[in-house]
C-alpha cells in the first residue's frame, strides 16, 4: 500500500473519532440538561403533591377537632346548661320574691347561652353540612349573622341543585365561613350578598359580595408577615385542594367580591 492513502485513511478516521467524541460530549450535556429539567419538574410536582397532602391532613385534623368540640359542647356543656335551666325553672319562687327577677334574668341569659351553643355546635359539626346540604348550612350561617342586626344579608340560589361530593362540600363551606369571618372582622360592611348558582354544565358557583372597606388583594397575597393574609392564603389553598378556582375583586373603599367556581365531577 502507498503511504499517502494510508495517511488519508488515518486522518479520516481521526476526524470521525474527533466528531464522535464531540458528539458524545454534546449528547451527554444535552441529556444531562434534559434530565435536570425533568427532575426539576418532578420536584415541583412532588412539592405540590406534598403541599396538597399536608393541607388535606391539616383539614382532616381540623374537621375532626371541630367534630369533637361540637360533640363535647352538645353532650357535656349543653346537657349541663339544660339541667341548670330545668333547676332554675323548678325554683319555687313567687313573683314577689326578691330573687325572682334575678332568677328570671339568669334564665333568659341561660336560654341565650343554650341557643348560641346550639348554633355553634351546628356550625362546627361537619356531619350537619353533609346532612342538611350546603345551601341550608350557608343559610343558617347567614341567619346567625343577620341576627346580630349589624349587617343586611341577601341570599339567593339559582339553577337546579345537584349534590356536591361530601369532602368538597365541607371544604367549600369552611371557605364560606372564612369569608364571612373576614367580612365581620375587617370589612365594616353594611350589606352582604351571597349567590349560589348551579349551572347546566355541572359547575357550582359561589359568589360573596360586600360593600365594606375592601383591600388590596395583591398586597395581601404577597404579604410576608406571618399573621397578615393567612385567611386569604388558606382560602386559596383550600380552593386548590378541591380543584376550585377563586377570584377576588376588591378595591379600597369599594367592597369585595369573591367568586368561587367548582366543577365537582372533574379531576
Amino acid at each position, binding site marked *: *500500500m502507498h*503511504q499517502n492513502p*494510508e*495517511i488519508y*485513511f*488515518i486522518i479520516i*478516521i*481521526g476526524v*470521525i*473519532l474527533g466528531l*464522535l*467524541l464531540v*458528539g*458524545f460530549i454534546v*449528547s*451527554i450535556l444535552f*441529556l*444531562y440538561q434534559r*434530565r435536570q429539567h425533568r427532575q426539576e419538574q418532578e420536584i415541583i410536582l412532588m412539592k405540590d403533591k406534598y403541599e396538597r397532602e399536608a393541607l388535606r391532613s391539616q383539614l382532616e385534623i381540623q374537621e375532626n377537632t371541630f367534630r369533637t368540640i361540637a360533640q363535647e359542647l352538645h353532650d357535656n356543656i349543653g346537657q349541663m346548661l339544660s339541667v341548670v335551666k330545668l333547676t332554675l325553672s323548678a325554683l319555687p319562687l313567687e313573683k314577689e320574691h326578691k330573687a325572682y327577677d334575678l332568677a328570671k334574668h339568669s334564665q333568659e341569659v341561660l336560654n341565650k347561652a343554650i341557643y348560641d351553643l346550639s348554633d355553634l355546635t351546628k356550625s362546627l359539626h361537619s356531619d350537619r353540612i353533609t346532612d342538611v346540604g350546603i345551601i341550608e348550612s350557608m343559610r343558617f350561617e347567614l341567619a346567625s349573622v343577620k341576627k346580630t342586626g349589624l349587617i343586611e344579608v341577601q341570599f339567593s340560589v339559582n339553577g337546579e341543585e345537584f349534590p356536591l361530593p361530601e369532602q368538597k362540600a365541607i371544604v367549600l363551606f369552611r371557605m364560606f365561613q372564612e369569608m364571612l369571618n373576614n367580612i365581620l372582622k375587617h370589612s365594616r360592611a353594611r350589606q352582604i350578598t351571597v349567590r349560589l348558582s348551579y349551572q347546566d354544565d355541572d359547575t357550582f358557583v359561589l359568589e360573596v359580595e360586600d360593600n365594606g372597606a375592601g383591600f388590596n388583594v395583591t398586597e395581601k397575597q404577597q404579604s410576608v408577615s406571618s399573621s397578615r393574609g393567612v385567611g386569604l392564603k388558606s382560602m386559596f389553598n383550600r380552593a386548590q385542594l378541591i380543584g376550585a378556582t377563586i377570584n377576588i375583586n376588591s378595591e379600597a373603599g369599594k367592597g369585595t367580591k369573591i367568586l368561587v367556581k367548582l366543577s365537582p365531577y372533574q379531576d
Partner: protein
Amino acid sequence: MKLPPYTYVLALSLIASFSVYYKPKDSAFYLKLFPPFLLGTSIVELLGSYLRYIGVYNVSLYNFFTTFEFCFYLLIISLVIINSTAKKIITAIILLYAVTAIVNIFFIQKMQTFHTVTYALGCLLVVGACIYYFLELFRLPKSVKLVNNPAFWICSGLLFFYCCSFPLYGLINYWINIKLIIRNFENIVTILNIFLYSLFTIAFLCIRTRKYTSSSS
C-alpha cells in the same frame, strides 16, 4: 530480558480478575471472560518481550493480538449494553472487522508492517461502542451507582486508551523514522497501558467491595 513496566500492572490486574470467580452468582458473564483474556495478554507481552530480546521482529504477533483484542473488547461491550439491535450490530461488526483485519494483515499491509489502517478502524469501533454504552447508561430510567459498576470502569479505560493510542499506533509507520518521538513512544504507551489495566483492576475490585459491604450489613 527487560519487561515493559506496565506488565506488572497487567499481572496485578490478572490477579484481581480472578476475584470474579469467587462469587460466581454475583459476577456478570462478561467479567468471567477477563481472566483468560488477561492471561493471554500477559503471555503475549512476555512472548513479545522475549522475541524482542532475542532480536526477532515481533510486529506480526502484535498484528494478530491487537486484532483479537479489538474483537474481544467489542464482544465485552456487546454483552454489557442492553439494546438487542445494538448487540446484533456489534456482533456483525466483530465478524466484519476480524475478516477485514486478517485481509489487511495478510494481503494489504503485510505481516511485517503494523496494521495501522485496521488498528485505526478498531480504535474507532471500540470508541464508538463505548460512547454508545455511555449514552445508554445515561439514558437509563434508574440512576446507577457508577463507582460499583465494572462496565463503567472498563469502558472508561477503553475510551481513554483507544482515543489516546489511536494517533500513536495509527501513525506508527511514520513515527518509526523520527527518533525523538519513538524514544518517548514507549513511555506514553506505558502510561496508557498502566491507566487501562488500573481501571480494569478497579472494575474487578469494585464489585468485590460492594459484595463485602452488602454481606456485612
